[in-house]
């Protein structure tokens, strides 16, 4: 089988994971102007919740997602209500610090509840190898790619056509103006957290199915962050696309050059792109009149 195609196919798989996680980051940033540094921990926590659901109720993948996503959205809403809402109007730096504190808490709580041992999360999905045009995949890998495509399409449609999506864009564009036309900024913020947590559930479950469930899963949040920067912090679809780009670059650089280049190749690309487009590939250029 062609080495290049193999690297591309597996690059798409890890890129899809990065993209799904990055979309959650971008969604909260777009609506609230805050980088949620606890997003990686939400990805981990929701994956563990899904693991417990499969252990207790023996749910297969689709029912599992139908249960896990709403639970995650409620979790996101709760966290926003308890930790973020009281900070409304405070400097962004303070809110970011709250998310960092929240991240540490979520990491601790996860290990306290589920322990440090790693687990397999299969959710009834076959472990047989499936060949697509001769290229081998596990079913969960194909599901990751499909999930990114579905979430990207739904995300685009949501922001473009739905009332909440449009109000979210309005808040992101000009918070005061949005308030003046009757949009509830706090409700929009809460909705962003809920949707972002829903995306975290999709990302977390699929990542755990492909790469095992362990308490260091939160680290994927940091690994996905370059995709958010590359795509443009305020571009949800850009983050998804950039995740795929980072995944492909990582795999190709490791495959052809190797010796750990995977870890730095994404950052090299980001530095180059940001030097040319400081607002990312798809981010909005921020113009201030002085």
């Amino acid at each position, binding site marked *: 089988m062609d*080495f290049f195609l*193999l*690297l591309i196919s*597996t*690059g798409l*798989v*890890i890129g899809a994971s990065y993209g799904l996680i990055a979309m959650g980051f971008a969604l909260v940033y777009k609506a609230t102007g805050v980088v949620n540094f606890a997003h990686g921990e939400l990805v981990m926590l929701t994956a563990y919740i899904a693991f417990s659901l499969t252990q207790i109720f023996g749910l297969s993948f689709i029912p599992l997602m139908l249960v896990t996503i709403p639970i995650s959205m409620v979790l996101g809403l709760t966290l926003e209500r308890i930790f973020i809402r009281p900070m409304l109007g405070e400097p962004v730096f303070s809110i970011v610090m709250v998310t960092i504190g929240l991240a540490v808490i979520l990491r*601790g709580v996860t*290990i306290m509840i589920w*322990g*440090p*041992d*790693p*687990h*397999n999360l299969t959710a009834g999905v076959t*472990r047989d*190898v499936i060949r697509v045009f001769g290229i*081998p*995949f*596990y079913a969960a890998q194909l599901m990751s790619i499909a999930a990114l495509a579905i979430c990207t399409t739904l995300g685009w449609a949501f922001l473009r056509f739905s009332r909440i999506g449009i109000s979210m864009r309005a808040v992101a564009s000009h918070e005061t103006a949005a308030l003046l036309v009757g949009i509830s900024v706090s409700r929009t913020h809460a909705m962003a957290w809920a949707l972002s947590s829903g995306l975290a559930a999709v990302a977390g479950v699929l*990542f755990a199915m492909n*790469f*095992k469930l*362990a*308490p*260091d899963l939160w*680290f*994927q949040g940091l690994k996905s962050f370059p995709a958010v920067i590359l795509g443009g912090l305020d571009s949800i679809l850009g983050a998804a696309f950039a995740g795929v780009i980072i995944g492909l670059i*990582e*795999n*190709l650089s*490791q*495959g052809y050059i*190797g*010796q*750990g280049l*995977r*870890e730095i190749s994404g950052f090299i690309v980001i530095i180059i792109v940001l030097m040319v487009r400081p607002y990312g590939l798809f981010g909005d250029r921020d113009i201030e009149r002085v």
Partner: protein
Amino acid sequence: MKRIAIVAIAALATGPAFAADPGVTDTEIRIGDVNIMTGAASFIGRAVSVGSKIAAAEINDAGGVNGRMIKIITEDDGYVPSRSFQALSKLIEVDEIFALNGTSGTANVLAMMPLIEENNLPTIVSTAPNELVYDPVRPSVFTLGASYSDAFYAQLKYINDNVDIENPVYGLIRQDDDFGVAVEHGYNRAVEEFGVEDAARIRFKKGTSNFSAEVAQLDRAGVNVLANGGIISGAANILSEARKLGMDIQSAQVWSEDMPPSVNLAAQAGYDYYVADYVALTGEANDAFLETAREYVSEDEIEAINRYTYVTYAALHAMAEAMSRCGEELTRDCTIENLRQLEDFPVGGIMAPISFNNENQLSGTAVSVYQLDADTQTFTRLTEFVDY
């Protein structure tokens, strides 16, 4: 007044020398344990802690060390070296421990080393058998365990000598750190000695999850004997990718891969991989140990038992033996001297007999090679404990 002074001086002059060393009373010996009780690596700390608990309970049940009961005091370091130093400071200053039997990871024990040396603390390092710990040798520090280098050499030698592979092609994948260097050292020794084709050497960063490109490289190089230096999820993900590509490999693994959670992850790929370990994973010694354990610890603690439990259990027995040989006058100097003289001290077959009477004060270097049956998730012992 003069009479009181004379009595006091006489009492000091005739008092037991061991009174100068903290951590020992007429009824008790306090042993410290700095360990990883929280965080992602806490499965190691829990296992270590259970090992100490079983050994202490067993020793105390048999009358203690010359009538003194062993009391274990555990401090959590969360696998953070600076916290290890703080934890040991607390154990020395507040709890006044006599000795140390639980030292966390390599960087952690190195962080604690100044305190250990300054206080002449009898210490058995049982979870970090790294060269940095025993070379240069510190007078009060004794190390238990084989090197990763020997463990990998042992497995590759077994494969070379016993497994019929047409055109063997060797490959290595390892972390880009000290641990990975040790793995590569054993691999180097093997490929040079066996004169086999060395087709690929791949390094990766600690914490890597996605090994698809690395395994594709191994596949392209035609590797069929793999030194897999991944740990836990990493090792399992490497095997999972290899299975996806249909690679027919004999895989030598790190001893962390004989622990139940690791086996649970890695067996899914279906490879009957090898491990080499300096503790017994199967057999009568193992069964006897578990039977003893059930007498002293809860079912939850039994669940936490893994290879680290056995090593720490053996280490505390060795420490108790050295203290016991001091008789009533228990001092750190005497304990250290007795540890230094320990030779072929039996530990129930859960590892090779302990001998610290060598220039590195190092024991437990003999390893056994085991093979996993991926279907039943059980190991078969392939060799006895052998020094390589």
